[in-house]
């Protein structure tokens, strides 16, 4: 399981309706359907990922999130999830609005670009960071918006979005005291549980 998925599992109530945006091969949904008996759906456009979901019996819909989510009614899901994908969409701010329109609550995880190693990479080498976790070059990366833990917090404040809880972890899912004290500097992955 990917680092942030176990954290999310602890926050999800059983038997709820879940929409997982950009669900990939459906690891998290699979886990939540099995362990929390959720009524879950994934959205995905990757052909291999779609097929993997169908193979595992995970309900998955081929839908391009950048083309809108108007087909989902207001507050029609208990929870809308998005793990490690927000940075790939055209307008993350509008997407968060949509997620909170559709879902009563949302859980969003993203790579924190404010991590000290990214800062050091840029500061010392003068070039865009390429790491194990974000292994792309600037020109071929699907990650078109880079933002930090603090940037996200600030956007929530501006939009009057409630942060129900957050977690900040390193690459190995370790939740050390120093990460918690300075998440913007030490977390590699940020996890936010938000609502209106």
């Amino acid at each position: 399981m990917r680092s942030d998925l176990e954290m999310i599992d602890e926050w999800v109530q059983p038997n709820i309706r879940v929409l997982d945006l950009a669900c990939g091969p459906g690891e998290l949904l699979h886990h939540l359907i099995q362990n929390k008996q959720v009524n879950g759906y994934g959205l995905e456009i990757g052909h291999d990922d779609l097929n993997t979901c169908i193979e595992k019996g995970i309900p998955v819909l081929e839908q391009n999130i950048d083309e809108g989510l108007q087909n989902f009614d207001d507050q029609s899901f208990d929870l809308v999830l998005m793990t490690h994908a927000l940075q790939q969409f055209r307008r993350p701010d509008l997407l968060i609005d949509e997620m909170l329109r559709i879902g009563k609550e949302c859980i969003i995880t993203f790579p924190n670009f404010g991590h000290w190693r990214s800062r050091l990479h840029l500061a010392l080498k003068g070039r865009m960071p390429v790491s194990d976790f974000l292994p792309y070059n600037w020109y071929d990366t699907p990650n078109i918006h880079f933002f930090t833990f603090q940037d996200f917090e600030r956007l929530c404040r501006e939009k009057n979005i409630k942060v129900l809880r957050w977690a900040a972890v390193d690459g190995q899912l370790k939740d050390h005291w120093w990460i918690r004290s300075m998440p913007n500097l030490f977390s590699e992955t940020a996890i936010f549980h938000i609502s209106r």
Partner: protein
Amino acid sequence: MPDVIPADSVGIVTPQIAQFDTPLALSCGQTLSSYQLTYETYGTLNQSASNAILICHALSGDHHAAGYHAMSDSKPGWWDTAIGPGKAIDTDNFFVIALNNLGGCCGSTGPTSLNPETGQRWEASFPIVTVEDWVESQARLADLLGIQTFAAIVGGSLGGMQVLEWSIRFPTRLKSAVIVASAPKLSTQNIAFNEVARQSIRRDPDFFDGNYIDNNSVPTNGLGLARMLGHITYLSDDAMGAKFGRQMRHDNYQYNYGIEFEVESYLRYQGEAFTKRFDANTYMLMTKALDYFDPASQTNGDLSAVLSRAQCEFLLVSFTTDWRFSPERSEEIVNALVKAGKQVSYAKIEATEGHDAFLFPIPRYMAVLNTFLTRVANGLTSEVK
């Protein structure tokens, strides 16, 4: 003609006839006192009769979905690309049933059959049948074959409508539903196309108000024209462009109404070929079945409310260039199923062929179908493994 039967073919198949003498009350108010359904089967029914797949055909389809009737056949069944050993609908795993729907012209009771009460051909007096009537008659065929629950019911276009109806009418009799290039009801434009097709048949002087056989006549012009129109709507603009462009029959314009462009020749050929194998009354009746289908009308137009009765798992498939049953129409069904909390997956396949794509062995389409049905075959449909 196949010199040898390909290894992934179901081989030589023989149609069978099922006779039904229990009256069937139709949506239109009339009752058929007895009728026949012609069908074919491929593969072997297992001991528990749990591995059956029903194939529902579209407007001009029939019971001959796969294999050959004889070595001299020029082509295999209409969905041979998908049905066979090792194919997407794998006859090594499944017992596949394909039938000719009631009102058809390929062996099941329809306008060209004799009305047992009059001893005359039905022709124009054959009652209009609906998707609901078809599903009812298909359930009786399933009873006869000892199949209580289908592993899957599969259909494209009008066939997909039958699958949808099955999921609502007999929720416990199917484990999964595969609905390809279909819609929860026809759009206004679709009904309009159907009406032009019907009018072209009805206005043919050889139609004789539907009693043309009695008058030793065939409304080939009208039926051919209806098919030409239909054919245009089954193809995409791009597909037609790629196939014919502005290719001409002669080097120069002839300035007359003969065939100038190859596409004209193609359409005329398609129209004419169709009149040799299809009955005009059946064509009219099938288009009416399309027009009338609207399950959400039972629940004040709320599709998710009527679909809340369904208990099976769904797979929906659409094709990007299909404008007759566009992806948006499939998505209406998907959205209603999601709203109703049903198990559904949906794939939108890149294809150039338009509506016809559902009959083509497009690799990703076949892969999705196969992945879904393999899981059904493994008996894992109701639980996530």
